[in-house]
């Protein structure tokens, strides 16, 4: 009986990690290039940051609900959950990329241009390394928030630690709720601490 519970717990923790890992990875892959583009084009910045901010204001359960009937990305299950989590995680990553790039001393950009760096050399050798701590802070925010939000995935069959919570709420069983909530809180703390450590290591100043 106890080993059943343990196996259950491990399996749902694993699902949870997969959901979070996948969503945050997609957000990073989309958010950083989008942030770089936003730092260059004022109009694009207004639109994309506006879009990401609006997404953030939609309550998560409502967002899942909206997505279910959407063709291709919708339906019941993991895909919808990942799409919703990506939409949430996008804002901190996008915004921090823009803020990090904006914050770079104009004299540093000017000297990079004056040395004859191409745009991509400047981006890789100067701008991204200098913006890295800020971008990483955005990733950290996104990760911690996603670990929490992902518990709602269970509502539409996405699995994860939310399964315990929903089961516990349904049967008024606090032990079940805690079996979901405590591991989720631990995951969030560990992710937060680990990413903060990397952030400090990366920070040049």
């Amino acid at each position: 009986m106890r080993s059943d519970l343990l196996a259950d717990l491990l399996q749902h923790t694993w699902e949870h990690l997969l959901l979070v890992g996948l969503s945050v990875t997609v957000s990073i892959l989309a958010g950083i290039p989008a942030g770089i583009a936003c730092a260059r084009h004022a109009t694009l910045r207004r639109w994309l940051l506006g879009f990401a901010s609006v997404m953030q204001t939609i309550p998560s359960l409502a967002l899942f609900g909206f997505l279910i009937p959407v063709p291709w990305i919708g339906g019941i299950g993991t895909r919808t959950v990942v799409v919703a989590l990506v939409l949430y995680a996008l804002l901190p990553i996008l915004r921090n990329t823009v803020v990090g790039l904006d914050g770079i001393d104009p004299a540093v950009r000017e000297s990079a241009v004056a040395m004859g760096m191409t745009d991509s050399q400047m981006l890789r050798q100067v701008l991204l390394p200098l913006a890295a701590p800020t971008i990483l802070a955005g990733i950290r925010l996104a990760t911690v928030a996603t670990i929490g939000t992902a518990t709602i995935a269970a509502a539409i069959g996405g699995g994860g630690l939310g399964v315990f919570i929903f089961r516990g709420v349904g049967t008024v069983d606090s032990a079940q709720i805690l079996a979901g909530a405590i591991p989720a809180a631990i995951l969030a703390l560990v992710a937060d601490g680990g990413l903060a450590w990397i952030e400090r290591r990366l920070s040049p100043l």
Partner: protein
Amino acid sequence: MATAIQFRDVSYSIGGRDILSHLDFSIERGETLVLLGRSGSGKSTALKLVNGMLRPTSGEVQVDGRSTRQWDPIQLKRRIGYVIQHIGLFPHLSVRRNIAVVPELEGWPAGRIAERVAELLESVGLPEAEFAQRYPRQLSGGQQQRVGVARALAVDPPILLFDEPFGALDPITRVDLQNQFLALRHRMEKTSLFVTHDIREALRVGTRIALLHEGRLDTIELASEFPQASTLAARQFLACLE
């Protein structure tokens, strides 16, 4: 002597304001032309027109006989060592790596880069053992300026643009670096455009002095003859010598 840089009736305006008007002069190969002028007279803007960071609104700037519009923008900049006014060292790179940036872009082998960095640090008076591993924030303003100079000289470019490179130095180090600059000029044929608002420095390092006043060329004279210049703007600068 061949002409290295030529301003041909160059004007530059931004937002409807004229910053530079009808500049027309040339710089011969091996010469150091000092751009002297008060704050806001357009000195830095003139330098950026040379390396193609800005394009003239009318007229053209030629480098080695070719308009900056025709140059490949990257190649033009790689031929020119530029110390910008605000230095702009890369804060995430050590002094050594800052100086090595352009040699690395040019694909120099590591051994040659290391040798060159050592040589340059030596020549700007920053002992390698003490300074190579430091980061820009661990340097004083004057030390940062010297790293900026070393960085601009790294690949031994034929043209140098110096925008108040010695502004933050104490008078003794300043004279020391001015002397090193003169020695460098004698050793190698460098064409330089050197910005300052210090008339003493202008007289020391320049072969000729061009005085900019409100975006116009007020006076252009051999350094030895500049003290006899008679325009109002020139006399104001010369009065500082007394």
